Each structure stands twice: as C-alpha cells, then as structure tokens.
C-alpha cells in the first residue's frame, strides 16, 4: 500500500543526527551533506564530537552529533535550533533536547530506550512515555529491529547487522527530505569495495530506511527544499571542509609560486587532517614529514624554507606554544614559513575537539623579544583556500613567518565552494638571489644577505647551491646589510625597528564595511565568527535596525583604513570566541572604546543569540 503523503516546501531545514560515538553519526551526517550538496542547496555543517575515540557506550560524554543546515537561499551558519533531531539512544536525546524548539520533530530509535540505557543517563521514566516530549512531534522507530529484519538474508551476525542502523536512519531522512540517493550507494560500494557483503548490507539498510518512510503512516509529511539556484554565482561547485580547503590552498600556493611544498607536522587535533590530506598528494611534489614533536615539525619546515621550499607547519594552540622559539628564529632569519594554527579550546590541552579563537594574542605576541608576525584568518570553511594563498603571498613576498589562524569550527565544518579557474589564482612566483647585490668601497662585488628590497624591506632569498652567495645566518643579532654577528647597540635598535617596519608595511587590502543604512553601530569580527555575525546582522536589518558590519582577514598588520573606519561609528561591538583578544588589540592601537561580546563554550555563536546581544547594543 502506498500512502498519499503531503509534501511541504520550507526554505530551509536544520537536521541534527545524534548518537553514540560508535554509531557512525559523523559518517551519516557527512553522507546526508554530500547528497544535499549535489542537490544544489546551500548548506553549512557543524560536526560535534568528544575527544575520546570511544567514550563509554550510552553515556552523555559519548554523544557525537552532526548538524546540517540547508536551504534554497544562501545561508551562513549551521543553524541555531534543529527542526529535526535523530536520536539513536537516550543519551543522544538527553544531550540534545535542550537545543530543540517546541514543535520540532524527533526521530528516536526506540530499541535503545531500555530501562538500563535510560538509567545510565539519569532518566527515571522513559521520556517517550512520561509526556515530557508532548511539545514535540516524536516519531518512535525501532531502528535496530527494522535494520536487523531488513538484513536477515545477508547471513550477518546480529552485532554486524545492527551496525547498519545509521544507514537505515540515513535512508529514512533521505526519503523525508527528497535527497538523491545514488551518491550514497556509490559511496558505500566504494567504501566497502573489499567487503561486498557489507556494502550490500549497508545499501539494503539504506533502501529499507527509505522504503520505511515511503510506506509507514507515521511519516505523513515529507519536505522539499528547492536548490539554492539564485544564491550562487555561475560556476561549478563542490562541497568542501575548512581543512580540505586549506590543504588545497597550500598545494595551489606551491604551484603558483613554482616552489615544492614541504610540510613538517606533528599530529594534533583538529589539524591532523591537513597532514593526512597533503600526504596523499606526493605526485604534486609535496613532501610531508611527520616529525618526532611539534618543534621538529617546524624545525624541518624552516630547514626546507632555507633550501627554497614553500614550507609549512600545521598545528593547534598547544603546538604553537612549542613552536614559538622556532617562529622567533624564522623572524630573525627572515625566511618564508607558514604556521597554520587550527585553534581549539584552551588553555593547555583544553577542549581538543571544540572550537575557540583564543590564540590570537599568542599568535600576535607569543615570542621572546620584538618578534612581529603577520596574521591571516579565514572566515568560512571554503575561505580557508584563499586564506592559505594569501598567507603564502605575504610569507614569500616579505620573507617572513606568517600565522594562519583557522579553528575547529572551520576545520570540520563544510559548505559549497565555487571551484576556481586556475587562471584566477594569484601569481606567487619569487626570485631567488642569483648574484652579488652590493659593491664595496673598493669596487668588490659582494653578496649581502641582509641587504633589503627598498619597497618591501624583504631580504634576498639565497638558496644553497647558488655559487658565490655562500653566507651564514643565525638567531644572533646581525649587522644590517652584511648579516654578520653584531652586538652593536645602535644596530640592534635599528634591526628591531626594521623588522617591525617590514611587517607594518605589508600591503593588505582595505577593510570593507557593509553599511547600507548609515548605521551608528559597527560590529567587527574576525575568523570563523563571520557566519553567525552576518546572519545576526541580517536578522537585525530584517527587523528594521541599522547596523554596519566589517570582518578582518588581516589581524597583523591591520588594514590601513581600520582606524578611520572605527572612528566613523558611535559604537563598535566585537564578538569573539575568547575573552576579548581582538578588542584588546583594537583598544590599544586605536584608543577606541570597543565593546566585547564573548562566548567561550567550545561552540560557535548562534545567530539568534548574537542578534539579541547586538540589538541590546543598538538600543543601549
């Protein structure tokens, strides 16, 4: 029997898949995302998982979730409140119910709502029966039983069959939201190419889930979210996560600079995926070196930079702390080097899998001596690609280490990305020094390693193997020009100021301000808060409020016009996922009474919450 289903057409939907760490929720979310991307919706995702690989089963700390926001128009965040929660067990329900607005749909795997499982997370009575979920539209589905039933003919042990329940759930949700399914079936066949039986079982579970939605009367309504055709400029698109975009940005920078890419890195969450990705692309001439520690990671990168590679080290906050001395050496040697910091909750080990923006001051000041380093921050997952190219431009042009500050939210989150034409990519080619650059009083032609380009103040990059340019560089203060060791007081003062002037003089684009209504208040952000801030600003403007928005890609040096922009507004609000680090810099440099709005809970801002805070600032 086929039921007549009602089809509704919302403009956007937020779905959260939640289950045990071992339930495969990240994979489920990832597949739903891929289906959604290929359907042409705009989307934004928020994976959220514990640092433990397998926390005790069925407990609150073991809950892993994946939130996906998709729409028929351009969207900026993974969404505040899910319209649909898929809860694979009582822990997943309990951990996530607080985020659900009344009226939201909840699909629960009733098989897991046993007395023991309920007790484990502190439910005295089953929330499915005690009326506590009356405000929601609950769909009780025995997902485990149905999956086992569907896989009866496959000769799998019960435990094995059970594992496909996430694919059953994915099938059901795919039916509910009219997602294309071919991609997932192809994916499963490829993933389990060596275990065809498992591939077939997963596909069967996936189809069973779809058919369950189609035939059961419990799911009377399905939803269609039209492709976001108007939201996107013409072009070919793909879905991309921040870490993948960053890795591709680095490979692209290597090609554009015509320099081999060298990555020295030590595994650390949430940066390791960049190491994994780059290690797969050796046919691009990429060398990846998994070092014995963070210090060796950056050390090897610096050695490769001396040899003429585009050198990179990738890490997170604790790793930056260990690398600081070598960053200082790179400042002194004036060699190009990219230091990629995928920020996570701190201090110390902090929250390895959660996001935060609290390494800004570490990037800015975390070294001994006067050791200025340019800082670049991407604003969305796809923007990590452009940020990597921009960081490489600055490093190569000005012969300096550059800090690239991404974070856990950008790293693991994803969104559609218009694939650039290769012709659009910037030209990053550099000239190595090839001969003498200085004439002594007696007419002798010599090479001076610290004789600077008058425009950029960059010193020549003379790589070993170049005859006649043999020279020695080091961390000891050196004489201007010759680079010889110098303890001369006046020379040190001059070199300190010159190194600072070189960074201050880096050319960066002016800050663009979005201010259609001539507002009195400016919201200024940096990094991954771009999505939530922009969404909040839209809400406010939609409600008739005037508010200006600007977002910083360059944190050091700041855009030339920043001071002038700040002075134009009566009030400047700076939302940050820290306790006010950008606000501190702004206040110190421009003497502006910037107001901080802070959240340091390991999660990105919610647009609604930001809109409320900004509204208060407007009305204040």
């Amino acid at each position: 029997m086929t039921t007549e289903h009602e089809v509704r057409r919302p403009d956007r939907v937020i779905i959260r898949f939640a289950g045990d760490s071992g339930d495969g929720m990240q994979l489920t979310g990832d597949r739903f995302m891929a289906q959604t991307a290929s359907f042409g919706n705009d989307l934004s995702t928020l994976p959220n998982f514990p640092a433990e690989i397998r926390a005790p089963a069925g407990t609150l700390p073991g809950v892993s979730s994946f939130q996906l926001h998709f729409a028929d128009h351009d969207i900026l965040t993974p969404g505040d409140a899910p319209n649909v929660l898929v809860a694979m067990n009582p822990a997943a329900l309990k951990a996530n119910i607080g985020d659900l607005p009344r009226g939201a749909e909840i699909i629960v795997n009733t098989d897991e709502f046993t007395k023991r499982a309920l007790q484990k997370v502190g439910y005295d009575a089953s929330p499915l029966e005690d009326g506590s979920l009356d405000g929601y539209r609950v769909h009780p589905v025995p997902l485990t039983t149905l999956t086992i039933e569907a896989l009866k003919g496959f000769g799998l042990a019960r435990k094995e069959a059970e594992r496909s329940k996430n694919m059953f759930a994915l099938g059901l949700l795919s039916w509910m939201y009219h997602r294309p399914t071919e991609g997932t079936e192809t994916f499963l066949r490829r993933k389990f190419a060596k275990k065809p039986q498992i591939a077939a079982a997963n596909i069967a579970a996936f189809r069973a889930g779809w058919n369950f939605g189609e035939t059961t009367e419990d799911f009377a309504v399905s939803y269609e979210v039209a492709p976001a055709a108007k939201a996107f400029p013409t072009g070919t698109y793909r879905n991309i996560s921040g870490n993948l975009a960053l890795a591709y940005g680095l490979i692209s920078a290597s090609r554009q600079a015509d320099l081999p890419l060298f990555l020295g890195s030590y595994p650390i969450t949430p940066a390791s995926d960049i190491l994994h990705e780059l290690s797969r692309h050796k046919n691009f001439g990429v060398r990846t070196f998994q070092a014995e520690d963070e210090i060796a990671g950056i050390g090897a990168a610096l050695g490769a930079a001396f040899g003429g590679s585009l050198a990179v080290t990738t890490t997170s906050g604790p790793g930056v702390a260990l690398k600081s001395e070598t960053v200082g050496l790179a400042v002194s040697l004036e060699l190009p080097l990219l230091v990629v910091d995928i920020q996570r909750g701190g201090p110390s080990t902090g929250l390895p899998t959660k996001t935060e923006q609290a390494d800004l001051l570490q990037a800015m000041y975390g070294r001994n001596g006067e050791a200025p380093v340019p800082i670049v921050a991407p604003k969305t997952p796809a923007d990590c690609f452009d940020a990597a190219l921009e960081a490489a431009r600055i490093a190569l042009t000005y012969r300096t280490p550059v800090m690239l500050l991404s974070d856990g939210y950008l790293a693991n989150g994803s969104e559609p990305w218009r694939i650039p034409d290769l012709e659009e990519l910037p030209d990053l080619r550099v000239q190595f020094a090839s001969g003498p650059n200085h004439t002594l009083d007696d007419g002798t032609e010599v090479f001076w390693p610290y004789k600077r380009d008058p425009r950029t103040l960059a010193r020549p990059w003379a790589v070993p193997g170049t005859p006649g340019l043999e020279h020695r560089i080091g961390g000891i203060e050196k004489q201007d020009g010759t680079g010889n060791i110098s303890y001369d007081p006046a020379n040190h003062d001059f070199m300190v100021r010159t190194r600072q002037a070189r960074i201050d003089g880096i050319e960066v684009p002016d800050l663009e301000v979005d201010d259609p209504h001539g507002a009195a208040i400016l919201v200024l952000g940096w990094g991954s808060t771009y999505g939530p801030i922009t969404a909040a600003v839209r809400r406010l403007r939609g409600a008739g409020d005037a508010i200006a928005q600007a977002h910083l890609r360059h944190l050091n040096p700041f855009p030339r016009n920043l001071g002038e922009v700040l002075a134009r507004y009566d009030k400047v609000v700076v939302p940050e996922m820290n306790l006010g680090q950008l606000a501190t810099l702004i206040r110190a440099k421009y003497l502006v009474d910037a107001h901080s709005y802070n959240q340091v809970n390991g999660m990105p801002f919610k647009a609604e919450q930001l809109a409320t805070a900004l509204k208060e600032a407007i009305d204040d």
Partner: protein
Amino acid sequence: MTDIGNGLLQLVPRAEARQSMKDFKSDQEVRWCPGCGDYAILAAVQGFMPELGLARENIVFVSGIGCSSRFPYYMNTYGMHSIHGRAPAIATGLATSRRDLSVWVVTGDGDALSIGGNHLIHALRRNVNLKILLFNNRIYGLTKGQYSPTSEVGKVTKSTPMGSLDAPFNPVSLAIGAEASFVARTIDSDRKHLTEVLRAAAEHPGTALVEIYQNCNIFNDGAFDALKDRQQAEETVIRLEHGQPIRFGAGLGKAVVRDPATGDLAVVTDTDENESRVLVHDAHAASPATAFALSRLADPDTLHRTPIGVFRSVERPVYDTLMADQLDVAHELLGKGDLGALLAGNDTWTVAG
C-alpha cells in the same frame, strides 16, 4: 681526492676547480677562547673539505647553540646557526628537500644530548643523510661551566657545588641504541685520526654520528688528557680499525676478547694462548651488539680503555632516498599532479547563469 663510492654523495655537484683549505675559511674572526679544542677541529674540517671535492655552494653547516655551534660562521659554505638543540630537525628538513646538498650538523654534548636529545635520536633512527659532528667537552662552556649530560658523576661545578648526581650518557652507546648506521669517535688533537673519521663519515650514506672529544681549556681543562698524553694514551686508547684484531697498550700487549661465559667483552694480556681469541673489529656487522659492547669498554671516570675510530658503519635505507622514491612512485602511479582535477574532486554541480 676521495674516491666517491657513496651513491648519495654523487648527487652533490663536484667543485669545478681544485680547492684549498683557504677556500673554506670565511671572512669572520674566530671567537673561541684561545686554546679551545674547537680550533683544531675547525682546521681539520677546513683541511678535509678540499679533499671531498664538493662544490662549496652545495655544502651546508647547521648548528644549534653552544660554543661549538658558532662553527658555521667560520666555514665559507652555506650555514645556519639555529636554536638550542634543534639543528638535527632543521637539517632534516633541508636534507630531505635538497638531496643535492651535503648537510653537516655541528653540535655539542649539551645541545645534542640534553635539550636536543629527542631530535638526535630521531634523526639517527630515520637515517637522514646528515653528518653530525658532536663536540663533547663534558661541560657547558657558553653558559660558563655547569655540568653536562656527559659529565662524570660527582662533577663539582657552579650548579653542583656538592657534585653532580646525574649518571652520564655515553654518546656512542646512545647512538647505537638509537639505530645509528654510522657511529665513530675521535679526538680534537689527533688531526690525522680526525680526518680519517671525517672521510669515512662523509662517504657514509645516511646519518653519521661522529663524537669528537674536545678540550674546554676554561671550564674543563684536561678532561681528555688521559687519551692525549703520549705515554698514558698507549694504555688508554684503543684504536679500532675494521678487519683488524683489537689490540692496544705498550707494544700492543693487551687485547680485547669476548668472555665466553657472558658474551661481554674483556681486556686480557695478549699472549700466544689468547691469540685466537682476540676480537677482530667488524664495523659492518649487521648486529650492533659488538659495537655496543665496545662502546661500554671505557671507564667513564678514568677514560681507560677508550676505543676511538669507527664503531659501526652499516648500510640501510636512507630517509631522504625513501622519501624521494615515494614521490617518484606517486608520480608514476598517478601522473603529474593535475591541480584543476584535484580542486574539482569527484562530486560537483554546476550553477548556470
């Protein structure tokens, strides 16, 4: 000129013209204390380099921090005076990305074995194509006289007025334990021996660790006198030569034998009876066991029975070569990287205008 038997050394361009020691002296004033053992090592290295015959611009000296680490400034090659303990890591990045370079690390007992211990052991186990010269003076010189990780137990220094409590490292034992493929020991004042060891190290494919006993005449003067005084040296120094029976002492009256009961090495008076038991040095032995046992012969306090020369020299895969091979294989299997295809991936959609 050395016969370049080492396949890896062949990747480094040769000098076009004949070189002299003068070519390797930089224009920088040497600023070690007068009488420092480093002068002798510098002269030996500068004197040996022309014999190696490599293009000067393809030679790089990388150092850490400490007295010895000023070394690169005095060599007219490319050089980097880096930060404390990190030279092996930096040199690893350079050597693996530039196989056309001859990369040398100059380090000291504090730099290599204290603050940089981790990098040293990992460079050794990877077998990166580096030549590491470890100047061991058993003291901290640049920080003015604290005990080092090779100082003898009970060493009275500024930081240990009642004597140091630390048991020292034996750098040769440590290197062998860290899977080093080449380990040697020599002495600053023995120019001929030092040069021979440098030659062997230069020719070795992979990481070569050369421990050089070096006198700090300011803070630890005479630390190696037992090995340098002509008369004492006869009794204290054991000269290792590959393929030769290990004998030493006045008139080579003593010999190293294996104790059949324990398998360990022992020193005996060389008699006709012992003749057949005398250990023949095999630097190329696959097992590091005998080399390790030789490294334990010396008394760390008196330095009696100190072997010098090449303890171990075996060929095993070199990290830089393996990395280059992987790049070649990837190139063969996947073709030259196509950036457009990479960026597009497998799953795209098009938005028409």
